[in-house]
């Protein structure tokens, strides 16, 4: 009586057993990387923190120039090597600390025998000035504190290529993208192409006859009284 009750309890318990079955395997040949050539220096190169000026030239100070961060990136939006990389989703600035972080993380995590990485941004060139801590207003513009690279939304920051799959590169590229001071993502060329197709499809499927472009171009609702000049260019998409 006692023994059967125990057996019943045992039958109700859920034990996950992995049964190994000999089945027909379909091993596909490995992907062909014969068209990919690895460069001599696969790792990311060091970038100067300060731009070099001729010795007679005083390093010029510069205004804030937020226009360098505003709006979409018109040129550097595609991958040259058509593989993987990090793309900025929002505008921002990268200083030498960020650049060093990107360089060290990628150089450490990648496999130089199979992968190579390439910078797609300039070295820091825009001077940012700072006044001393606790100083009062006035007394001219502050001294140059550090240099930055302004980034626009959609810009490619770093490209990674080589004899590897996206799944191999994605973990550390994602890590780097998350640490950047602006929204960024790690993607591949195929994903970007698919996204473009999807955007076009959504645009065509939209049955709302009123789009931001149409409304702004036709000054509907008298919106020209309150929209910004950039809204006439980018139609509410960018700040």
């Amino acid at each position: 009586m006692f023994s059967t009750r125990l057996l019943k309890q045992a039958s109700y318990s859920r034990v996950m057993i992995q049964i190994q079955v000999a089945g027909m395997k379909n091993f596909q040949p490995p992907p062909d990387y014969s068209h990919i050539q690895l460069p001599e220096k696969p790792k990311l190169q060091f970038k100067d923190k300060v731009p070099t000026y001729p010795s007679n030239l005083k390093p010029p100070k510069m205004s804030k120039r937020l226009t360098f961060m505003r709006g979409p990136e018109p040129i550097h939006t595609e991958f040259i090597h058509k593989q993987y990389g990090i793309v900025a989703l929002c505008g921002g600035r990268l200083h030498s600390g960020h650049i060093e972080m990107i360089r060290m993380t990628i150089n450490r995590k990648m496999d130089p025998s199979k992968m190579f990485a390439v910078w797609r941004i300039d070295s820091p060139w825009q001077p940012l000035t700072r006044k001393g801590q606790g100083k009062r207003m006035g007394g001219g513009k502050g001294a140059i504190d550090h240099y930055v690279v302004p980034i626009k939304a959609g810009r490619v920051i770093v490209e990674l290529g080589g004899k590897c799959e996206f799944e191999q590169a994605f973990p550390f590229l994602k890590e780097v993208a998350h640490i950047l001071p602006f929204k960024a993502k790690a993607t591949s060329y195929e994903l970007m192409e698919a996204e473009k197709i999807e955007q076009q499809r959504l645009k065509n499927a939209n049955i709302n006859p009123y789009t931001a472009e149409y409304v702004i171009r036709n000054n509907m609702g008298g919106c020209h009284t309150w929209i910004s000049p950039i809204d006439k260019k980018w139609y509410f998409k960018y700040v």
Partner: protein
Amino acid sequence: MSVIESTTRLINLQRLLKPWIPTTTAIRWRTRKPNIQRPIPDHYVKARFKAALEPIYPDPLMDKPWFEKCGNILQTKEKEETSKYEELLAKEFYKKFAESQLIAVFHENSSKAYELLKIKQMIHGHNMKMVFGSRKIATLALVGTEFEPVLRLHEGKTAYLCSKDLHVPKLLKFVKKMNHLVLLAGVVQGRLITKSQLQWVATLPDINMLRAELCSILSSHTIQLSQSLTYQQQQLTQSLEQLVKKDSETSTDGSETSADGTS
């Protein structure tokens, strides 16, 4: 009535024609630098505009038939991928079928490998082979060929016994010894027949004898025709032969009597 109407009209006109003093106020706006990463929330008018300008997508299920609208009714099976090895196995499978004159179709119950070994030993040397194949491989091999009807029997584990000779009694004798295999049907010279038909085929004599019988049946009419055409001539020749025989007998008798001297 008309007096009331005209007075209301006057009052409305007065409302419209009231002097309107235009006022202007200076608004301090766009003087803050925009924060690109943490933009300020849109003001009410802009937010209203943006809400109205949001894209509207039609319901993808609107014009679809009921069996596509109510989800998960149509279960689409994933397309099975065939590897090169499976294609090779299928080719071998078909080759064995094509080369054999007699195939027995069995349902395979579970058995031990030792029993299979005994079967293989039994059929060894009799130009027979046990053929095993999964449903996937059998379909690959036989679809579009003359053996396609055999696939209708391939439910569950199915085994085939392919014989290059057309000796059905021998096959049935072997089948009796196979305990775990259940005979379903047979394929005799590319023709699928039932189990009872197969047993009847076993009672028939040798194929060559049957072929000779068939030839004789086919030629019986021509033989009859030729016989009937040549009947008169044959009778004539027969009677002439008989006559010749008689004459030869009497002539010998005559020669004997002449020797004696009297006719």
